[in-house]
């Protein structure tokens, strides 16, 4: 009698699950999932920092358009942002862009909007006295931000950044919709090819997502405790 679950299909295709057709073809599978998440995360950190700083600008002409942009993006489903990028980017750039880059752009745009609000909250969480002290010694407002507020704020933001990275890992699965061969896409390919093992395949990729995300969520909790100001010093 056949066993209820047969994980041979995983073992047989493990390389494809992990790295796709690499090195004979483009990188895919789990490795591409991580690549998409890491690249989008790094770009979103910069995007979020810039948008976050602009969103607390005292100049209304800067602050208001930036807030409109952030709130618009936050009010859209990620899938739609990816579609937008997929169809609009070639029109704007006048040439087709590789799918994975399209997805990175979409994830970056989307995540930057969320990161910006982490940055804003992190900056606003630093007591006003810190800025006043810096200004009172003659530092210019941008210097007070750069040397005093941001270093303290960024430290407080680290756990939230890690949480956002976890969301990003999960969000990369939407790249599947425009044909980027990350983990979810690879899983559907193998499922279509082998036909008989959907349960095994999707249990496996669920486990992969869970393990990696749980690891980072735990890290975030650990950092939250480690980085609390009073305890660490």
């Amino acid at each position, binding site marked *: 009698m056949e066993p209820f679950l047969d994980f041979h299909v995983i073992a047989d295709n493990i390389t494809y699950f992990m790295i796709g057709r690499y090195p004979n073809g483009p990188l895919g599978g789990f490795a591409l999932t991580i690549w998409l998440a890491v690249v989008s995360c790094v770009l979103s950190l910069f995007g979020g920092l810039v948008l976050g700083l602009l969103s607390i600008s005292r100049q209304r002409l800067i602050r208001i358009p930036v807030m409109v942009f952030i709130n618009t993006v936050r009010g859209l489903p990620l899938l739609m942002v990816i579609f937008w990028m997929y169809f609009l980017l070639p029109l704007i750039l006048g040439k087709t862009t590789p799918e994975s880059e399209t997805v990175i752009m979409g994830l970056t745009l989307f995540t930057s909007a969320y990161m910006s609000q982490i940055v804003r909250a992190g900056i606003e969480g630093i*007591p006003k*006295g*810190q800025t*006043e*002290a*810096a*200004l*009172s*010694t*003659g*530092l*210019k407002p941008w*210097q007070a931000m750069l*040397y*005093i507020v941001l*270093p*303290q704020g960024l*430290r407080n933001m680290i756990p939230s950044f890690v949480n956002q990275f976890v969301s990003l890992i999960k969000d990369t699965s939407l790249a599947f919709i425009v044909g980027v061969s990350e983990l979810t896409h690879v899983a559907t390919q193998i499922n279509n090819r082998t036909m008989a093992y959907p349960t095994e395949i999707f249990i496996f990729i669920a486990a992969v997502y869970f393990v990696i995300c749980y690891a980072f969520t735990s890290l975030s909790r650990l950092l939250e405790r480690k980085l609390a*100001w*009073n305890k660490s*010093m």
Partner: protein
Amino acid sequence: MITFEGVHKWFKKLHVLNDINLHVKPGEVVVVCGPSGSGKSTLIRTINQLEPINEGRLVVDGMDLSDKKTDINKLRAEVGFVFQQFNLYPHLSVLSNITLAPIKIRKTPKKEAEEQAMALLERVGLAVKRDAYPTQLSGGQQQRVAIARALAMKPRIMLFDEPTSALDPEMIGEVLAVMQDLAKSGMTMVVVTHEMGFAREVSDRVVFMDAGVILEEREPEAFFKNPQHERAQQFLKQLLSPMH
């Protein structure tokens, strides 16, 4: 050194500074006192423009603050400010707290800035704490470092906004001693405080405020012996015997 002429300030509808006229001469030590909410903190914060004024003329060290062209950052570099809550930078060591502004603003070479910082730490009795972080220090020590940080810019005026109000009683003395030493060195100082002992022994003049108005402005001896204004009498009475 500092001249207020008909200065007014409002927070929304609240008239926090009402027709302030005050002149502080170079080397003078002026104590500002009054009940809470009297506007004394706001008054001292206008001197380095942590609070802008709405009306009147304010000239500090030759710079007219009512003039929009005045470089506020330049003014602040010449005016030291000590806060009630110390406001040391928790992510920087004691030494870096002190050297940051001289290095960034005065472009002092790092080594020189550190030597000057050590001299200041020596002066406030905390040379051994150079590598400590603010949270490792007691309140009194933090405030002494904060004074050293303000002095590092070689200011011509020092402002103190209730420097001992957040301290445990046994630490007040060490901070007042540093301030007294500073006063003796000829520094121009404006001090908001309830420490009447300090006012009596160190200051040249006491300014009493209530409800945004300067009600009395006299030499300390005369002020304490024989306050003219009824509210000043009340205030002193409460301060000296809070139970009654």
